[in-house]
């Protein structure tokens, strides 16, 4: 041990005397580790820390890579605050401008393709082949006759059969019925204009027919006050740097165009949320590290009253963090949210070594030692403790490699490397910078203020605690044990936060827009997915999933490319539709009375459907039906509808027949031709699919298909997620998605938290056993830690702070860091011996307080972070360190005194000579030191 002390002291003296050389060594290490820093990637998204050991996560990563549309950026154009009359037109204009701009060369680096609407060409060619076989009879009846009268009659029959009185069916087919109603209104408006003598163009007829058969090509919200664009970027959520730059550029352009049109816009989706996580994390860490460094340096300047503290302590501290980043670059190549968080915390941990060194140095200078002697003596006295403490903490951290998740394993490597990097940086640079300071003072012929002021580090805090606790030992023990028991009673109530969105930054637009998508568009960005190789069984699977109460819709490639069996079943119906249409020439004469009857019937059907939609809260459908019938939600007639105008014309004008026949000559062939085209019986193949649909449902390599299961609600909200995932699991166990991956991450983090804690406990136990060579003392040392842990859980339960997969790292970190104070007290008490409670606390209390405060500042610097996961981690770790400090300083020394001095427990190391003589002998020295 003497040789070790000698080595440290010799090193300290050499570095103080030859600061330039020591600094050159440090610069050489810095240069080498700069290569590591250059290799380091910042990946501060939740997605990047998903555990690869989980099959669900592996599937999710496969989906992200192979089905890029699943993580497309969704741009929402919001015209709810728009005051003009042309709200819908403004939305469409904004969508078209965004589409045009992002498709241009300026965005080719970031945008692969953008869809402002649905390409109607595929549905025009194959639309009827995609209709369920069970509904084929309906189609045959509906499209038997494309003359005006036959068309309206067929439509009325279909509406009455399918929807009259059945709000559930209306809700199920809402999009289809809305398209029908809007298209029908357009067709009837054209008919009305014809009756009024206007010229109707072929394009107008074609547009109205398209609207009826294919629906609105734009993705609009239920009340048509919002629109949606899908943007497929050139990067994925794994490409961190482009994700930040590209997504920010896309967002800026989307917002610029929206602002210019007087509406609002924002983006969401996995990539947008990932970008926000990255930005808010970076901001949080940058702010946290700045706050931590400023507060800690300010604290040390105040305590040591040494203006050169920022240089003596701050510079090695920052260089140690830089080295840690370099080591991380070599060892794990990246910084995740967890390891980046640790880098900030390292500010509070690394400074502890400097505190011990500078405390010793200042004390020795107080006693009049020269600078070189003071540094040497400080290293002689505290060097071993610093190295042992650092190795203990590093060993505790490295034991975390037993974890399942890469997130914790990376933390193990970076945390232990960080401790050692800070240790080496402090050992190299603190004496060197002290040496530089000494030379500057000599060069400028200035006296050393330390010698001049005779500044002493106060020890009142520890001494007073020692005095009170030695007078009332049972009070201290009972009080603190009672506190731990009371908090422990609450501890089982601590819960786990499993909602990823509750861990994000508050007020993020990308997160809030997820609710908007659910409420206004019926879409949830975080759906569940299935990867399938075979499509034959897909229709059954899709049907089973669609039957689940928690599922809004299911989409699969077979929605667009039905199986061969389904196509074979549907083909005869389509052929029949075509046969019916081929014989269907427009009639020259129209029975106006019969037509009027069908129009009245149609109006009644639409009014009744409107009643059901208003009752059922189907806003989009109610909006369309009210528009067509001129009613408001209360059933009041608020405007003349197209029906009113038609009834007026048809009932009063004699020339209607001729004009109706003319309209029919334009409309019926168009309708006939479009339906004929849509009833194409040819086989639909993957090659027929538009790119948007193909890239949504088929993997890039063509080997797999994707099934998307849309939830009814935002799946992150409340208990709904469990219902959704449980019901899906009742059909298939192969689903994946962010919600399941996050569940898996929470599960693994819980297991890892416990496993890591056990590993850390074992390693720390062994190190302490070797250090103290006394089982009783080693076990006693764990008592404050256990009390701190139980109390932490109790406080979390009372304050309703939940564990999550980020802040759960507090458990193993607490083991590695929280035991330090106890260890220092043990060493000092063994030196002081019987009756040494007061000097033990006087000698260690202030240092333990300072190291606890600096560590708390390090962790506490996360608390102002916008990201709630970082904030809660900051709170949990700060409270944990405070508790560990409290039980170490207030409870543990008193207990040591009682068991040793009242109950006679032998705490001396195995194999040591007469303990009583030894403790008395050793005890004398510190007392002298204190008096001196």
């Amino acid at each position: 041990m003497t040789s070790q002390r000698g080595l440290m002291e010799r090193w300290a003296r050499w570095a103080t005397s030859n600061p330039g050389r020591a600094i050159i060594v440090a610069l050489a290490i810095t240069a080498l580790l700069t290569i590591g820093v250059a290799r380091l990637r910042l990946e501060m998204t939740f997605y990047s820390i998903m555990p690869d050991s989980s099959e669900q996560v592996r599937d999710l990563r496969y989906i992200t890579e192979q089905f890029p549309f699943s993580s497309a950026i969704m741009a929402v154009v919001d015209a709810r605050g728009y005051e003009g009359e042309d709200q819908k037109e403004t939305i469409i204009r904004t969508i078209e401008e965004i589409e045009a701009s992002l498709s241009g060369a300026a965005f080719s680096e970031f945008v692969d393709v953008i869809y402002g609407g649905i390409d109607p060409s595929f549905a025009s060619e194959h639309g009827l082949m995609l209709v369920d076989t069970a509904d084929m009879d309906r189609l045959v009846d509906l499209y038997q006759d494309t003359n005006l009268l036959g068309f309206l009659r067929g439509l009325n029959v279909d509406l009455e059969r399918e929807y009259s009185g059945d709000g559930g069916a209306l809700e199920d087919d809402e999009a289809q019925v809305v398209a029908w109603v809007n298209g029908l209104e357009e067709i009837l408006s054209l008919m009305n204009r014809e009756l009024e003598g206007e010229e109707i163009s072929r394009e107008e007829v074609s547009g109205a027919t398209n609207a009826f058969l294919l629906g609105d090509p734009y993705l609009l919200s239920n009340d048509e006050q919002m629109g949606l664009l899908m943007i497929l970027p050139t990067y994925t959520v794994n490409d961190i740097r482009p994700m930040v730059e590209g997504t920010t550029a896309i967002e800026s352009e989307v917002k610029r165009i929206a602002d210019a049109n007087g509406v609002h816009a924002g983006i969401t989706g996995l990539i947008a949320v990932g970008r926000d996580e990255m930005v808010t994390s970076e901001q949080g860490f940058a702010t946290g590290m700045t706050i931590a460094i400023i507060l800690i340096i300010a604290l040390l300047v105040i305590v040591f009253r040494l203006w050169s503290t920022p240089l003596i302590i701050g510079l090695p501290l920052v260089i140690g963090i830089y080295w840690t980043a370099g080591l991380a670059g070599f060892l794990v190549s990246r910084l995740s949210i967890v390891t980046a968080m640790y880098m900030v915390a390292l500010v509070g941990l690394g400074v502890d070594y400097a505190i011990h060194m500078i405390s010793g140095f200042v004390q020795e200078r107080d006693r009049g030692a020269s600078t070189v002697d003071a540094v040497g003596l400080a290293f002689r006295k505290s060097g071993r403790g610093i190295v042992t403490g650092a190795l203990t903490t590093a060993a505790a951290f490295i034991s975390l490699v037993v974890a399942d998740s890469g997130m914790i394993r990376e933390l193990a490597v970076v945390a232990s490397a960080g401790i050692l990097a800070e240790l080496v940086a402090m050992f190299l640079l603190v004496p060197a910078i002290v040496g530089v300071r000494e030379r500057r003072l000599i060069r400028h012929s200035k006296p050393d203020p330390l010698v001049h002021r005779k500044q002493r580090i106060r020890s009142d805090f520890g001494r007073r605690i020692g005095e009170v606790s030695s007078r009332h030992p049972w009070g201290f023990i009972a009080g603190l044990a009672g506190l731990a028991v009371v908090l422990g009673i609450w501890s089982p109530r601590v819960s786990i936060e499993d909602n990823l969105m509750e861990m994000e930054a508050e007020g993020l637009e990308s997160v809030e827009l997820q609710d908007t998508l659910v409420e206004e568009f019926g879409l949830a960005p975080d759906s569940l997915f299935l990867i399938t190789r075979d499509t034959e069984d897909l229709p059954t699977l899709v049907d089973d999933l669609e039957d689940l109460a928690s599922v809004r819709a299911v989409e699969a490639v077979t929605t667009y490319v039905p199986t061969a069996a389904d196509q074979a079943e549907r083909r005869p119906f389509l052929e029949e539709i075509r046969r019916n249409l081929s014989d269907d020439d427009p009639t020259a004469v129209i029975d106006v009375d019969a037509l009027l009857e069908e129009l009245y019937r149609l109006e009644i059907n639409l009014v009744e459907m409107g009643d059901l939609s208003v009752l059922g809260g189907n806003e989009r459908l109610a909006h369309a039906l009210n528009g067509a019938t001129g009613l408001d939600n209360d059933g009041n007639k608020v405007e003349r509808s197209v029906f009113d105008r038609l009834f007026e014309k048809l009932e009063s004008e004699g020339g209607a027949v001729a004009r109706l026949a003319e309209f029919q000559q334009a409309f019926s062939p168009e309708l006939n031709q479009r339906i004929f085209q849509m009833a194409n019986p040819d086989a639909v193949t993957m090659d027929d699919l538009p790119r948007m649909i193909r890239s949504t449902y088929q993997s890039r390599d063509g080997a797999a298909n994707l099934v998307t299961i849309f939830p009814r609600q935002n799946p992150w909200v409340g208990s709904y997620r469990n219902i959704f995932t449980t019901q899906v699991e009742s059909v298939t166990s192969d689903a994946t998605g962010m919600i399941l991956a996050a569940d898996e991450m929470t599960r693994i983090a819980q297991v890892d938290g416990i496993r890591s804690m056990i590993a850390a406990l074992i390693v720390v136990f062994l190190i302490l056993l070797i250090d103290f060579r006394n089982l009783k003392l080693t076990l006693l040392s764990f008592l404050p830690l256990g009390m701190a842990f139980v109390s932490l859980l109790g406080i979390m339960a009372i304050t309703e702070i939940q564990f999550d997969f980020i802040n759960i790292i507090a458990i193993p970190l607490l083991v590695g860091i929280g035991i330090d104070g106890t260890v220092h007290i043990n060493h000092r008490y063994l030196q002081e011996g019987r009756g040494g409670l007061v000097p033990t606390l006087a000698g260690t209390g202030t240092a333990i307080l300072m190291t606890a405060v600096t560590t708390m500042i390090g962790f506490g610097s996360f608390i102002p972070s916008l990201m709630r996961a970082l904030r809660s981690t900051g709170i949990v770790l700060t409270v944990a360190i405070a508790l560990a400090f409290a039980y170490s300083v207030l409870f543990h020394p008193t207990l040591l005194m009682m068991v040793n001095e009242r109950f006679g427990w032998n705490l001396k190391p195995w194999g040591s000579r007469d303990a009583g003589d030894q403790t008395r002998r050793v005890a004398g020295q510190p007392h002298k030191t204190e008096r001196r």
Partner: protein
Amino acid sequence: MKKSTLLIIGFLVAGVASTTAQNVGDILAAADEAFELSDVYSRSTLTITRNGREQATQVMESFQSDAADGTVRSLSVFSAPPRVAGTAYLMIGNDLWIRFASTGRVRKMSSSARTNAAAGSDFSYADMGDGSRSFTAGYSARLDGMESIRGVDAHRIVLTPTQGDAAYERLVAWVSAEELIYLRVQYWTDGAPIKVMDLEDYRRVGNVHYPFVVRMRSLTNDSVSEIVTQEIVPASPRVEDRLFSSTYLRSLR
């Protein structure tokens, strides 16, 4: 041990034994009594809150009466909001008709509609009892312990369907241990609960305790429907046989 202490323990043991011995069928039968009023006229409101937005309150008059063969019959006529004032639902056993006030037409609904939402609410016709008076008809029951619901000790009773075509794969009912009234019913499909019905504000009506507030919360949609009974009159002279026919429905103005 003191004799008095022994006596107290004896009473407690006897009480527990009496409770556990209570037959689950008896508990449900007692709870079902709340719905065994005959020839009932009632006036109630139905308020639906969807996505946090409360919709216009629906006001309805209901008439309920069993047919001679025991078939449950009910007629509900809406008087508000204006859009549906005069709209009526007629249910006879498992058959359903709707009369639209806006058009005066009467439509018979398909049998599959019994699992659909009643009047756009979170209640389905099946929740009304599948054409019977009990929530639990067609289900076999077993006691599954005790739980506290809104601070009241309640039997937790798990009900599984006895027939294959049941609307739900499982119901869980909580019946108060003391008063033997339904406090809550949970509806399950595909391994998960999808709706929860709370029955509150029990008041004495005739010989039974009747829940004046029934709230159904969908667990799959962000939606809650609350029926508040304003007035309920058993053996009401207003409930006549002629009300329960599609002919009467057509005659409504």
